[in-house]
């Protein structure tokens, strides 16, 4: 019994310690964002890495997500004779929910894991220490550009995901299953308003911060050689995915 209590205590303390370190890391990064100079070259490089190189994946997954939603939605709506509601169903589910969440999960899998591994390798090969020895701030130099790039690219990739998804839904719902082309877009535009669009933007922006924060933190403090980097990368992806889903619920409740 005593051993169990001790174990619980140790786990609680280590979790609190980790949360404290993550909080300090986020606070330091947010302060450093406003400290000049801006690492313009690094920012462009990170936007290219997170954004441009994820584009094909986002287009592909966005198209098939829209197609699946349209297919399943059409089958369900036909039972009630409500095929005309297919457009709003595809549009709203993509704009409010599936677009931000799935695009964030895809970027986590492609870019978040790579960022953790990159920073982790820089840590274990003492490249981050080398920056400190040169009197440069490694958070300013390495982490801030990733944060800014994530804040720029996540909403943009989300908009690509949603747009492609809506057209994917159109191909299945209208072209393949014979729904009404006019009703698809007309009903969608009358059902969705700017608050839905803003919800998607807020969500993808906050997911960008979560992914950049967790990926950078895990990589920045990776330890114990190659195994440590591998462990940090796995932890980073799992934690990003869980936090995205949990935060999605909370932000959805607030912005409903």
């Amino acid at each position, binding site marked *: 019994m005593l051993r169990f209590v001790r174990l619980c205590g140790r786990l609680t303390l280590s979790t609190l310690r980790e949360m404290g370190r993550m909080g300090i890391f986020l606070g330091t990064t947010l302060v450093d964002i406003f400290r000049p100079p801006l690492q313009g070259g690094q920012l462009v490089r990170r936007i290219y890495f997170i954004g441009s190189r994820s584009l094909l994946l986002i287009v592909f997954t966005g198209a098939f997500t829209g197609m699946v939603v349209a297919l399943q939605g059409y089958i369900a709506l036909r039972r009630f004779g409500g095929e005309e509601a297919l457009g709003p169903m595809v549009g709203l589910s993509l704009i409010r929910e599936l677009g931000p969440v799935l695009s964030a999960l895809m970027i986590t899998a492609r870019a978040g894991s790579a960022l953790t591994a990159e920073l982790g*390798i820089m840590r274990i*090969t*003492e*490249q981050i*220490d*080398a920056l400190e*020895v*040169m*009197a440069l701030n490694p958070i300013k*130099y390495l982490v801030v550009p990733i944060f800014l790039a994530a804040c720029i690219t996540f909403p943009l990739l989300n908009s690509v995901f949603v747009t492609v998804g809506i057209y994917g839904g159109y191909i299945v719902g209208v072209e393949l299953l014979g729904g009404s082309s006019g009703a698809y877009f007309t009903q969608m535009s009358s059902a969705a308003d700017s608050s839905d669009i803003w919800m998607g933007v807020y969500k993808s922006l906050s997911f960008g911060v979560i992914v950049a924060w967790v990926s950078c933190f895990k990589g920045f403090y990776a330890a114990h050689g190659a195994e440590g980097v591998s462990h940090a990368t796995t932890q980073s992806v799992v934690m990003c995915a869980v936090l995205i889903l949990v935060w999605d619920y909370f932000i959805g409740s607030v912005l409903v």
Partner: protein
Amino acid sequence: MIRLVNVCKSFGSQQVLSGLNLDIPDRAVYVVVGVSGAGKSCLLKHLIGLMRPDSGQVWIDDIEITSLGRRALNRVRNRFGMLFQGGALFDSMSVYDNVAFPLREKTRKSEAEIRDKVHERLFQVGLAGVDAKFPSELSGGMRKRAALARSLVSDPEVLLFDEPTTGLDPIRVNAIHRLILDLHQLLGFTAVVVSHEIPAVFSLATHIAMLHGGAIVESGPPSALQASDNPIVRQFMSGQLEGPIDVY
């Protein structure tokens, strides 16, 4: 002058430095030897503020650095250079960009001035003509020399060497030692070298100290260490398994 006063450092229950005292005079080549895991790299990281002691003081001239904030510490770090064990070259940059990096980030020099300085340092370490290569394309010895060029490019007053010859064959060990000595004579920096290359370091050092059990057990000119009666020093020098040093 660099001075460590009663420095203690532990990681969890493991005490690495326990009341360490050390004086490093200006323009010396000060070599710290000791068995693997004795805390030599840890000692080096205390000199530049990469680690802070649990207790004790680290003085760089008249500045006590353990209590400094980031900005003040960076002013001290600007006087230092460090050659890491694995080189710590940025693997996404070419050799040229690696060496130019401190100048681009910390000075307002023109690209032409930077180019001249980088080529001068690469020539001095025997790496002229490898500007465009990436660290992964270099041999171990070349990586160390490229990292040395990078640490020298800012003209540091003090250069720290963390096992600069680890993983190199005996000929390249001597070549790196010769290079350090030549550059020390040419540029006049203070060198603090952490190594366990016995006896090769005797030709390099002006001063030598042995770290064991978290403290300096013997220090002085190389001849004094070679003639020491201390059984720990004698076992380390001879490499014998039997003695006061617990091998396993």
